[in-house]
């Protein structure tokens, strides 16, 4: 069974600041990791994923994430946030080797960007 922990329930920054949203996972086997964004009142939208290869993956709108096997982490970063980045961010993990695509989500981090 895989678990996902997002240690920060809320993060508040100002426009133009850099931000890092933390994600840690636990699973004994091979997995892939992803981040999704949810704007208020909307469904989730895919941001980026890591499956193998380069541990730093680029996503949409300037987001990137770095996978670390030693730390069991997949933190999301953005160098300069915009007010429109205010949303809830979910980290998710799925076991590889199965076609289910079942995702286990963290509880989410609410990002507030003040203009």
């Amino acid at each position, binding site marked *: 069974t895989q678990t996902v922990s997002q240690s920060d329930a809320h993060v508040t920054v100002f426009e133009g600041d850099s931000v890092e949203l933390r994600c840690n996972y636990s699973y004994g086997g091979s997995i892939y990791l992803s981040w999704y964004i949810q704007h208020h009142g909307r469904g989730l939208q895919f941001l980026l994923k890591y499956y193998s290869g380069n541990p730093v993956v680029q996503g949409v709108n300037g987001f990137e994430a770095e996978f670390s096997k030693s730390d069991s982490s997949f933190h999301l970063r953005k160098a300069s946030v915009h007010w429109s980045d205010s949303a809830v961010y979910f980290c998710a993990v799925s076991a590889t080797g199965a076609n*289910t695509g079942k995702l286990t989500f963290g509880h989410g981090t609410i990002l507030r960007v003040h203009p």
Partner: protein
Amino acid sequence: EAAVTQSPRNKVAVTGGKVTLSCNQTNNHNNMYWYRQDTGHGLRLIHYSYGAGSTEKGDIPDGYKASRPSQENFSLILELATPSQTSVYFCASGHGGASEQYFGPGTRLTVL
């Protein structure tokens, strides 16, 4: 553009009543999923499907049934709704494996 739609968008039901939530996707994805989202729990998987005629239990299937009559449609059925099933329900589709999922806009269900 990938498209997943859900109906109704809002629903108020009475305890003990039957509720059906519908989902339609035009992505031609084999896999479809039903999640519920609750404060403090994130999203949790209720049922999923590999294709028409297939339904599988997710992590929290108790009190829910699912139906996949076609590639495009996937329904979530609450035969006897309870107040604990008050939540926001999301449908998603995807190719499975490591592929990303595409989510619908959600259905807000209130059971009184």
